[in-house]
């Protein structure tokens, strides 16, 4: 699973730093957490500003979950997406 986080000025200012910390912390917790699929890999990518937030107050912080844009993202929102995927039973 790939989470890409915008780290431009506005996203950083309004929470992307907290999202990065939350995910790195979760990544560590998942190593000992029960029910995580053996083949699950979390990739965290940091993106430069691509300008999507300019002139729009309802974008930052912007995160992409496997390519899907999640505007006004929060740590809990993204962590839940990650865990749902990591614990998915096929």
């Amino acid at each position: 699973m790939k989470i890409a986080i915008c780290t431009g000025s506005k996203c950083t200012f309004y929470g992307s730093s907290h999202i990065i910390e939350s995910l790195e912390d979760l990544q560590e917790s998942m190593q000992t957490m029960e029910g995580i699929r053996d083949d699950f890999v979390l990739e965290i990518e940091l993106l430069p500003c691509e300008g999507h937030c300019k002139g729009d107050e309802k974008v930052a912080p912007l995160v992409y979950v496997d390519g899907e844009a999640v505007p006004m993202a929060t740590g809990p929102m993204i962590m839940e997406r990650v865990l749902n995927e990591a614990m998915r039973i096929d």
Partner: protein
Amino acid sequence: MRDSYIDIITIRRKVFAKIAQLAYEDVDLLLLNREIYDLLPGEQATYRESIFRERAVIGERLRMALGLNARTAAETGAVTEGIDIVDIDRLVYNRPLVEVIKIACEACPEKHMIVTDNCRKCLAHPCVNVCPKSAVSIGKHAAIIDQEKCIKCGKCVEACPYHSIVTTGRPCSEACGVNAIHSDYLNRAEIDDDKCVACGACITACPFGSIADKSQLYQLIRSIKRGEPVYAIVAPSFVSQFGPLAKPAQVFEAIRQLGFTDVIEVGMGADLTTLNEAVEFLHHVPGQKPFMGTSCCYSWKLMVQKNFTAQNDHISESSTPMIYSAQQLKARTPGAKVVFIGPCISKKLEALQDSVKDSVDFVITFEELMGMFVAREVEPSAMQPQRDPAEASATGRSYAYAGGVAAAVTSRIKELDPEREVRFESVEGLHDCVKLMRLAKAGQKNGMLLEGMACTGGCIGGPGTLVPLARAKKNIQAFAKESPFASPADNTHLAAADKPVL
């Protein structure tokens, strides 16, 4: 900065970005009321019980960010009341620096122990048996603590096998290392300005965002817009604060983009502090001073000044990195306006001292600077700088984290006098600073160099920072390694005449 307080942090930051935008765009401050609706639109409350109160609180935040005092409900009139006195292009300061926004304070109870629903009213009831004041009894449904009798020793908290007794209290006063917060007549927090050392720990700790400091952001931007030659001097802890992809050189270039004439590292001034403190230590310890405290943290210095009067002379007389940097800059560039940009709010007070106010014109935090980047849509990581910052030695850059100052000074002492064994101790957090000074006062730290940092982690833990400690420290250590100068003595930006000798 406490990352998990993201909602409160975001409100504060929106206010900084808004104030920066108003200043850059020459918006008439008399229209400030409109901006409140822009920040908090609609009819529904997001944070508190009512949108009316939310807007009133953010109005006071905007006023404090403009440099005005926070008002109580008894005084709250139009948000623009008295605003003309801050609508200028030079520093304004209304005492005190750190204030409780009374209309935002939720009057948290002072420290006490409470019995939670976990209590099973057990037969053993160790809570009763360990209480030295007979304050705990077993009631109909659970243990009961008589708050009149309780001396808050915490024995019952430790003894309960169900963890059912907890200590609760006020995050602001628990964070305060100098006991400066008490209650007003409505049990809200009140800061005693005579005791406060402006470390800002209470601002970071309050979960309701009810404490704030005043900003100089608006007046600074007005000064830049007037076309004055405004120079930024940037504290060593700046590395990695402005987005994980922004390199130090890019941050400096981004600051220039905001209209600053140029940018220099305060690490350069830190080098002068190191050189001076090393000579001072060799000259005065243990002869004139039984021990020597470092000089760079202004809250630590104020704490000693206010609480350890007899030991005040044992703090280094050397100037702080901010002051040395500003003086160097002003000596070379007559007419320059100097802005200190750092993680710290007590520097705002330091800059007001009679001996300093001619050297430093404004002080803002990293958070306030980021508000300027956001208002101007400046992206540090997209900058293409011509040169790397190269004004500070490796040890000057390491002033940013706890232990870095003592390490810099002791290694300089070793250079000057390889025979001399220097013992040192570094403490972080104001509570531990006070403890250290108590021991020093009792004569237990004689012969030592004492580094006091009011913020946990040192400057990288300051109230005006944007990234967590561990990340900041790692990046600063890497940046320190890139310095062209291993020792402050090698720093070619400092005139030989300015470097003290034994």
